[in-house]
Each structure stands twice: as C-alpha cells, then as structure tokens.
C-alpha cells in the first residue's frame, strides 16, 4: 500500500466482551468527524452474547459503497476463534498486523502480514486496571491511520459521557497510551488527507436509511414480527413513527403483520412491514391478496443466507426468486432493490410512493450487508418523486372501485368517504368488486393490474447505467458498488465496460434494457446466489447478447472488486 491511500481497510477482531464492535464504530465516527468517508460492517459468531466478533472498516477520502479487496491493517485484541473469520479478512501484501505482545500473532496470519506490531496490551491493563484493551488498540489504530488524536478523544469522551467523567477519562488515557506505543510508526497505514465536505452528513446504516426513507415517503403504520437482520428497522421505526403520529404494532407472526398493514392501508394510511426470507415466505399468500384487491403495501425484505433458516446473520442475494415469482396465480407487483447503504434512503421513498400511486404491493429487496453496514453519507439535496394514491374525485354512482375506464389506475376510496363504499376482494371480481368466475372479468382485471404497472413512467431511477463499451456487467443490489469498483480497476488496466444495475426488478423494462444493452457484445452477470437466480431472471425477461457469463457465489463470502476486474481482463473468455 502507498503511504497515503485513497482508502484503507481495517479489521479489528476479538472474543466476546473484547469490545471490537464498539471500537469499530468509534473509529468510523472519528474518521468521519475528521472529514473522511467510510463504511463499517461487523462479523459475529453464532452466540447470542459474547463469542468471537470483528469490525471491518473501510475509510476513504470519498464515499465508498463496498468493502475493498484486502485489508491493510488487522488489529487483534485477542485471537480466540479468529480463524472462523480468516476467509472474510484477506490481507494485503503490505498489511500491518497489530497484536498483544503477550499473545503474539497466529502464525498463519503473521505469515501474510508485512509487518507485525506488538503492543503491550496485557501489561498496560495490568498496570492500569481502568483501561481496556480495545481502547488502547483504538488509540494505536488511530495513530497508525494518521487520524487527529483530539478528534478521536472527543468521540471517546462523548461515547462514555453517560458513564461519568472518570470512565471517559480512563478510556481517553488508554487510547493515548495506545497511540504513544506506536508513535514511531504514526501514519504507517495512512489515508490521504480528507477532502473538504460541505453540507450536512449522516452516519447511518442501511436499515436506518430504509426506515427514515419510508417515513419521508409517507409511511405512518407498520406491523412486523422480529427477525434478523430486519429487526433494526422496526426498532428504529417504533419510537420514530410515534413522533410523527404513526404507529408500529408487533404482530403475533408474519401472517398477521402483512394482513395488518393491508388493513391499515385499506384504511388509507401508507403502511410497511420489514422481514427476512422466512418471514417473506409466510407473507406470499397475502401479497397475492394485496395484488388482487389492489391495496398498496411495502414489504422490506432484508436478505440473509438461505434456504430455510439458513444463516441469519450473513448476506446473500438469494430471495430474488421468491420476491419476483413467489405468488400463486398471475400477480404482477413491484420489486425494487437499493444499490448502496445510502441508496436505501432513496429506494424506500421511491418504493413507498410507487406502491401508493399504483395501488400494489412493493417489495424492497435489501440485504444483510446493506442493512447492517454503517456509512457516512451526504444529506441528499433532493428527494425522489413522491407518489400519492388517486382518490375518487366526486361520488360516482355506483362507485366502481375496479373501474376499467378510468386510466390505468382506478381511483380508490378511503373508508369514511360517503357514497363510495365497496368491498375489496381477493376473489376474481368485476369492476364493482363483486366476485365472479367469468372469463371476461378475469382477463379484464388481469390486464388492468399488469398494464397499470407496465404503463407507469419510472424514469431514470429504473437502473444505474454507467460507462460504455462492448462489454457490460449486469448486477443488482449491494453488488452494484462492488462492480463499479471492479470496472474502475479494469479501466485503470485499459479495459472498459458498462455497468447496468436495475433498481426496478419488477415490472421489467424491456425497452430500456434493450437500449442499455445496445452494442454490447459480451455480458458478465455478477450476483451473490448459488443458483444464479439473477442470471435466470435476466434470461427470462430480457434479450441478452449471445456471449454471457456469470460470476456468482452464495453468501457469506462477499464478491470483491478485483474478482470482477479479473473477469473483465480475461476478455473474450468472459
């Protein structure tokens, strides 16, 4: 690594109680307070409390949307079970490893690192019982990275403020001691100077960004059942919905939660639930009900490893199939996938507005990486287009809730409106909502529900389209940032490629995709699923060039930018 990089990556590992997770947060906060950008993710073991843990950080001059190929700095507070994570922490050739001099570094890791720095962690703690090893390590890491010491100390003080001045002071002292211990090596893993940032910035996780976006998009009712890794969304929403006059209800199960939001939305209140694969599975019957009865709802699905209970704490893109195809019958609906932690904010608002405007369920397909990673982002200057429900203008008589002659979307009355009562129905129905088994009504309503989605002008938000050339990389969701960086690496090596990443997965946009693909000879599809679900989705719905290859892998090992780059450099044999 250069002595002054555009981005550096840091991993901190330790066993339960060692405090590496909070240490990671403080390091990110200090870097951001110093004007840098960054991204933080966490690895935890299967235990509910304690167990091994790691904080993975990438600090950078400009916003970053994915983790880097390799880690420049590895700080081991201890090494208990650290091998469980070793696949997930590839070390750079130039990497620096920091460890407790009493413990040393595990030989496999030491062999990979270029330099090993031993810190007298155990010794210092013995001498200063109020100090903690993670704080000493934090101070050391801050110094190696070249962070302003006062800024770091400010973050530490604020964090421990409520535990009292003595605790805060001890932690600051510990950090200072850590910094002193590596003083001679200050800036060994140094970031290039921070770029001046104007305007407000947020430190936010994808799950928080989804929740905030949903409220900004109009959501005022949520019902949900806890599930990893979606519970954070609910826990943020519960107090904050109350603040804006809304409500969150903890339901008895996901069957209840999805039906509660259908009821609330039928009542005129934009509504949302959040879940993960197993919960989404339980919702598909009622997703069909929302489709057929044309009640807008938003379902946030934060993907984790599958199938079945799978790996609840790890990321994967394997719920694409169920999100797109999971309902019985012909049930067109919206599927929208955010492309970065920051994009969760935009996508959630867009999804809420589209669901409302089109009177249909929207699935927001996030994943554990996006949901639980924390990043610094600039407060967005603009909000996405806001969608609103179309209400009947004057009391038509009789009111035809599912009218075929009122444009692509038929006005939806809200309980309480006089003269427009109707019964919403999941049975095949006529324009008034009365059940029928006639072929004409069936086809007419199926057409209506398809056409209202197809006819909507989604604008440029439908996809991210970047770059040019005869080669394109098609990806989606949290891999967008990885692919962008892989393409940039390839460009640096003289090979250019387009990036195509649809944010709108349903309805499909054949015309737009075909112009995005115009002139493309070779296509690389990149996705995080074992069964190449995205590739098959693309084949089903779009005309692809003849030369298509795929780079894919299930979770939990992420796909890294250099893998995309390597495939691009391999050229013809893509």
């Amino acid at each position, binding site marked *: 690594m250069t002595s002054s990089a555009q981005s550096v990556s840091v991993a901190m590992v330790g066993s339960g109680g060692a405090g590496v997770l909070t240490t990671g947060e403080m390091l990110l906060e200090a870097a951001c*307070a110093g004007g840098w950008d960054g991204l933080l993710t966490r690895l935890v073991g299967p235990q509910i409390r304690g167990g091994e843990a790691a904080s993975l950080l990438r600090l950078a001059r400009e916003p970053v949307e994915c983790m880097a190929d390799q880690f420049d700095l590895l700080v081991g507070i201890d090494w208990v079970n650290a091998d469980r994570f070793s696949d997930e922490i590839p070390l750079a050739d130039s990497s620096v490893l920091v460890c407790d001099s009493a413990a040393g570094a595990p030989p496999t890791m030491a062999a990979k690192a270029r330099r090993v720095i031993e810190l007298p962690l155990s010794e210092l703690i013995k001498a200063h019982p109020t100090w903690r090893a993670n704080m000493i390590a934090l101070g050391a890491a801050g110094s190696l990275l070249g962070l302003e010491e006062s800024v770091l100390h400010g973050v530490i003080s604020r964090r421990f403020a409520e535990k009292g001045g003595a605790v805060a002071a001890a932690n600051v002292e510990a950090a200072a001691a850590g910094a002193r211990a590596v003083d001679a090596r200050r800036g060994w893993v140094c970031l290039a100077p921070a770029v001046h940032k104007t305007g407000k910035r947020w430190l936010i996780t994808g799950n928080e960004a989804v929740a*905030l976006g949903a409220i900004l998009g109009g959501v005022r009712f949520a019902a949900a059942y806890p599930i990893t890794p979606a519970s954070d969304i609910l826990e943020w929403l519960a107090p904050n919905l109350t603040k804006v006059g809304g*409500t969150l209800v903890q*339901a*008895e199960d996901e069957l209840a939660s999805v039906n*509660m939001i259908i009821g609330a939305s039928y*009542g005129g*209140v934009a509504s949302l639930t959040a879940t993960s694969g197993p919960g989404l599975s339980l919702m598909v019957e009622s997703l069909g009900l929302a489709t057929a009865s044309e009640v807008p709802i938003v379902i946030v699905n934060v993907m984790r490893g599958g199938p079945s209970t799978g790996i609840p704490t790890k990321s994967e893109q394997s719920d694409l199939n169920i999100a797109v195809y999971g309902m019985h019958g012909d049930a067109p609906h919206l599927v929208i996938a955010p492309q970065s932690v920051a994009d969760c904010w935009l996508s959630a608002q867009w999804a809420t507005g589209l669901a409302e405007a089109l009177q249909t369920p929207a699935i927001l397909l996030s994943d554990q990486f996006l949901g639980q990673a924390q990043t610094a982002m600039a407060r967005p200057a603009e909000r996405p287009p806001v969608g609103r429900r179309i209400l009947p203008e004057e009391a038509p008589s009789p009111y035809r809730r599912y009218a075929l002659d009122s444009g692509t979307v038929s006005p939806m009355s809200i309980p309480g409106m006089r003269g427009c009562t109707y*019964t919403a129905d999941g049975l095949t129905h006529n324009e008034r909502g009365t059940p029928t088994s006639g072929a004409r009504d069936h086809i007419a309503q199926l057409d209506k529900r398809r056409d209202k989605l197809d006819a909507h002008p989604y604008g440029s938000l439908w996809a991210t389209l970047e770059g040019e050339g005869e080669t394109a990389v098609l990806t989606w969701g949290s891999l967008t940032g990885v692919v962008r960086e892989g393409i940039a690496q390839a460009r640096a090596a003289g090979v250019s490629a387009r990036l195509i990443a649809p944010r709108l997965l349903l309805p499909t946009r054949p015309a737009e995709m075909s112009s995005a693909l115009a002139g493309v000879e070779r296509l690389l599809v990149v996705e995080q699923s074992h069964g190449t679900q995205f590739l098959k989705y693309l084949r089903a719905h779009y005309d692809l060039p003849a030369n298509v290859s795929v780079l894919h892998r299930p979770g939990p090992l992420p796909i890294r930018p250099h893998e995309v780059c390597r495939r691009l450099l391999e050229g013809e044999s893509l």
Partner: protein
Amino acid sequence: MNAAQPLKCRPSDYKSEVKPIWCPGCGDYHVLMALTRAMAALGLPPERIAVVSGIGCSSRIPAYTNCYGFHGVHGRALAVASGLKIARPDMTVIVATGDGDGYSIGGNHFLHACRRNVDLTYIVMDNHIYGMTKGQPSPTTEPDFDTALTPGGTGLRPFNPLVVALASGANFVARAYSGNPNETAALIVDAVEHPGFSFVEVLSACVTYRPDQRAWKERVHPAPVAPTDDPARAARRLMTDDGFNLGVLFRGNRPAYAPAKASELVAPEKLEEEFEV
C-alpha cells in the same frame, strides 16, 4: 335493541344490491338481517362502518352490506381488522367470519386479538362445519359427526371458542342464535358499544351439510345467570355449559388497546437529525 340509540336509519339502508350465494334457508341470511338491524340501531352512516371477513360462506357477508367491506384471505380477518382499526380509530370495525376461518386457520389471530384488546367486534357465524368447501369438519364439529374426510367422525374434543376467548383476554363474550335476529342484533349493538375486543359467537345453521342443526331452534335458551365481569368465573361456567346458553356471558372492563402517542408531533424531516455527524 338498545333503546338509548335513536333509530336514524332503516336496516335496508345497510343492505347492498348484491345477491347472496347462500343456499336457501342458510342461517347466514338471518345474521345479515341481524347485522343490518344492529347497524340501523347504532345509527352510524354506512361509510363509517367497515366489515372485514375471511373466506367461507359466512365470510361473504361484507359485500351484502352497504358499508366499506374487506373480503380477505382465509383466516386473516382479525389481522386485517386490527390494522384497519389501529390506523383508523374513527371507523367502527366489525369482523365477521366462520368457525373454520376463525377457529381453525385463524386460531392464532383469535388468541392474540383477544389479548391485544383492540376495539373491534368479532362475529363468528358458527355452523360447526366447512360449508364453502362442501362439508368437512371444523374445530367445533361434534366428535362423532361423520364426513367424507373423517369417516366415523373426528374423535376430537370440539374447540370451545368462548372459553378460549376468556382465557386469552376478550373483553366481552356473548353467544347468539341466528334464528333470533332481533336478539342477535341487540347483542351486536351491545358488543359494538362495549370498548375493546368484543366477541359474539353466533350459532348459524348450515342447512345443506348440517340439516340436523334445524333442531337448534329447540335447544337454545337464554343464559340462566347474569353476565359477570370476572373472566375466571365466566370461563368456569362456560367450560361446563351445554353450548346453547344465549346472551352476554362476560362483560369485562379492561381498557381498549391504545397505541403510544407523542405529546407533540414533529415533522418527518426532524428525524434526520439523529444521524448528523
């Protein structure tokens, strides 16, 4: 009928023009009659009432009224209604389903609706059978009742909905017989006016798959004791009653569900502040 309420409307104002698919003689016609009479007695405009149901013959009832209606999927009526009522506390929400919908596939929502105590009125049109799917046993079917699916009977102890409601926290428990539409209407009015979760089990005969239920007319009788506000006492009584006691059997006084409210509302944009660095 509740004498305190002035009759502003006629029951026919609450009926829609949709023709029921019910068999001639089905008890559900009388439930519809009782329901519209109750609505008239309550004097609410139709657009202030929502009727929510699941799937079954009984669950067809919303579209036969002139109110806002929601005919959802099988077993989920209480969840839909809870969401609606919590989001729209100004609406009067009545849930009407069948014994299959409410006690079999919908059993969990029943437990938790009783416990949650949202201000709903829950009417179960119980005919001890699955009418819509042509005669399979429901949880309330007698153990020796023969069906194609359970030759010789299920052999299972019937589900006791009233006791389960009490055990789970329902705030008002009553039993009605659809053959007495005026009394049923009065019980529905009472249930709607009572705060919290009110449960009205209505015996409503299926003339097609349970012609034996024509005998219910002779078996029903008013409850011999006055309603209690002690759930344990009411449960004890109902665990040993004959299943044909009619009237209000429990009238509780738990306050209805009330979601958390902020003393002062903030603009949504205000919520962004916590993320600022």
